């Protein structure tokens, strides 16, 4: 393709598409508008080589690009026009930044001679997106496009991934120039992966080899580093129990004998309690978020803390580390595995099991097999697990639906749990699931969303309709903004300020988009409907009416220590 177009002038707009194709990106999400029309004109011309998915709102389009990136590991591409098109991307960009998701956001901009004149749909998207992008750049000359795109892909994908934004003035899209493309593999001011210090590996191995009660918490770094196998080998050699953060889920099969559950605010009882009992704490590709640690003053104070991390700015940010092992975990884990002695911690694992039994009895069993007639959210996941054997990609929204999915969904494959972790963006699930399904069409993709979050981006059902994307959508409807209601119940004396929802007939909405839809209220219906949903090779909408005032437990209340986690 390159050769064909040497010594042949093409427009900046055409160059944009050619740059994307050079980077093997042939799918994009977006929404057209005045300032990006030249690029859309090229999308039209490249129809056979380049697929564009029209969102129903730019926020929907960017969440789809995020979903695509999370399941494929490749940068998601999103187009938007200037002004409101660009500002509508902001939530998705911020979400991608905090969850380290690689994105290339391309916005149209008014012509360069109009910059700063408050022209129609002019907005300073570079200024607006600066604090929420890994890198951004405005292009006012077509000739700069190849280099900027090459840099953008390199930056978005390398080291700790993240979103980049390229803002292209309309005149630069029209301008003709000689196109040639060279991939970027170096930027002198950018060190994406720190050099591994052998001494640190040695030090960490020595501490691990001495440990009596070591404990691992792994985050998304294992997935981003494609280090799932290296991680598994490491824990299997050392025999150390491992718990996941919200973002780390699915890096290790949930059925693995050394997997001891989830840490954090609504995580499992044992790993939260035993965080404050272990003698060596090993954080792998995680960033000690406040939802993971609870009160820092009483977090793992008794333990030696080892932190395997790619981003030096994360070391000692929240938790003081004794040994920081910088580098990509794909490499550091291999080196560490070589230096640790094979071990097993039967008694220590027994402690996890003992506490798990308690959680099973007090929380899990009553949630999965409730004595009441009303359905719980946990039952839905029990059914989905049964029907999919944990093989589906579960894309959750934010709130109770997310926490219950995180707690109860089984996973056998990596990159199967997609959620808005750091930013907590309601409305994420449906569009992200659409992007995920486009990314891995061969896999079952299920959007899990509450009645609140669904109504934030339900317009994206139009994308499912237009492109016949066989996504399964499960709305867990408790007619409340459930998580906020739970907090109001626990911490605000049940003053349910603006959390009760009058909902429309969701079935009619889904059917209006031509999607097969079912509403269930009983256990028998649920099991039948989930079976039917999974068996279907078409888009499917399932609304489950769940108990109205159900709570997610266990819970580490804000400001409390992780070991003070409440079971009820």
């Amino acid at each position, binding site marked *: 393709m390159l050769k064909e177009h040497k010594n042949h002038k093409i427009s900046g707009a055409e160059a944009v598409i050619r740059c994307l194709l050079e980077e093997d990106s042939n799918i994009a999400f977006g929404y057209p508008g005045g300032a990006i029309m030249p690029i859309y004109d090229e999308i039209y011309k490249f129809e056979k080589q380049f697929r564009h998915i029209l969102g129903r709102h730019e926020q929907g389009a960017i969440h789809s690009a995020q979903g695509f990136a999370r399941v494929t590991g490749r940068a998601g591409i999103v187009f938007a026009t200037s002004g409101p098109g660009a500002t509508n991307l902001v939530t998705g960009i911020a979400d991608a930044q905090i969850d380290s998701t690689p994105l290339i956001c391309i916005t149209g901009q008014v012509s360069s001679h109009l910059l700063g004149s408050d022209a129609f749909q002019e907005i300073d998207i570079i200024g607006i997106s*600066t*604090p929420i992008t890994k*890198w951004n750049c*405005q292009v006012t000359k077509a000739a700069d496009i190849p280099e900027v795109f090459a840099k953008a892909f390199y930056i978005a994908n390398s080291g700790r991934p993240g979103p980049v934004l390229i803002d292209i003035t309309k005149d630069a899209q029209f301008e003709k120039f000689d196109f040639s493309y060279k991939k970027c593999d170096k930027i002198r*001011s950018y060190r994406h992966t720190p050099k591994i210090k052998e001494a640190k590996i040695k030090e960490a191995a020595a501490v691990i080899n001495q440990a009596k009660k070591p404990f691992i918490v792994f985050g998304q770094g294992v997935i981003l580093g494609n280090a799932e196998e290296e991680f598994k080998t490491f824990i299997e050699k050392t025999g150390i129990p491992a718990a996941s953060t919200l973002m780390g889920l699915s890096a290790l099969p949930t059925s693995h004998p050394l997997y001891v559950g989830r840490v954090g605010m609504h995580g499992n009882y044992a790993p939260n309690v035993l965080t404050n009992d272990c003698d060596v704490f090993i954080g792998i590709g995680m960033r000690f978020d406040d939802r993971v640690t609870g009160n820092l003053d009483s977090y793992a104070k008794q333990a030696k803390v080892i932190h395997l991390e790619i981003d030096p*700015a994360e*070391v000692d*940010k929240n938790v003081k580390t004794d040994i920081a092992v910088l580098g990509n975990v794909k490499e550091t884990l291999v080196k560490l595995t070589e230096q640790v002695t094979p071990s097993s911690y039967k008694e220590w694992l027994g402690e996890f099991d003992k506490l798990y039994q308690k959680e099973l009895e007090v929380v899990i069993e009553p949630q999965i097999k409730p004595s009441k007639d009303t359905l719980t959210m946990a039952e839905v996941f029990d059914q989905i697990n049964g029907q999919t054997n944990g093989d589906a990609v579960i894309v959750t929204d934010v709130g109770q639906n997310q926490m219950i999915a995180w707690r109860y969904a089984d996973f056998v494959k990596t990159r199967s749990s997609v959620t808005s972790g750091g930013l907590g963006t309601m409305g994420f699930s449906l569009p992200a699931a659409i992007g995920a399904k486009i990314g891995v069409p061969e896999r079952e993709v299920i959007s899990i969303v509450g009645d609140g979050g669904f109504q934030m981006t339900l317009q994206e059902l139009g994308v499912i309709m237009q492109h016949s994307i066989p996504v399964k959508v499960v709305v867990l409807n408790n007619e409340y903004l459930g998580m906020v209601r739970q907090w109001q119940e626990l911490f605000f004396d049940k003053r349910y300020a603006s959390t009760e929802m009058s909902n429309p007939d969701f079935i009619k909405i889904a059917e209006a988009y031509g999607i097969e839809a079912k509403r269930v209220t009983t256990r028998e219906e649920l099991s039948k409907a989930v079976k039917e949903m999974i068996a279907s090779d078409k888009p499917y909408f399932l609304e489950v009416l769940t108990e109205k005032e159900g709570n997610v437990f266990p819970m580490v209340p804000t400001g409390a220590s992780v070991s003070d986690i409440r079971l009820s």
Partner: protein
Amino acid sequence: METPQKFTISVYTENNIGLLNRLSAIFLKRHINIESLTASPSEIENIHRFTFVVIMQESKVKKIVGQLDKQIEVVRAFYHSEDEIIYKETALFKVSTEHLYNEEIQDKLKFRRANIINITKEYFVIDYTGSKEDIDILYDRLKPYGIMQFVRSGRIAISRSKMPISDYIKEI
């Protein structure tokens, strides 16, 4: 409790549009006031240098430098305490010419090694370089005579120890 103190942060960067915005946003996000800011070329060709002065706890300044350092177009960022650097600020004072032959003023300027760099019928301009405190003192001394205009630059600073930046540039 760690006490806040004055730190000078030196950031070596590429010279790109919008970078100042990116750097200052890092301070803004953490609600940190920038006491002084200077942007200039550095000893390395095509590499610019931002000098920030902040008053904060060392543990926090470390984290800020970590965030600055990880920006794509930042080559390296460093921080130094007051005793680790040699630093200066420059000030210009505009004073009415009626005071030009006032001996007190002449003495004060001589004592402080301040220079008169421009004289007109209406005013004369004093150029003075020193620490922030030195400039404050001269300001107080001149105030009774009426300062028509006053301006001071941000801090510029040089570290006593070697900045590892040159080695780093060689390495890449």
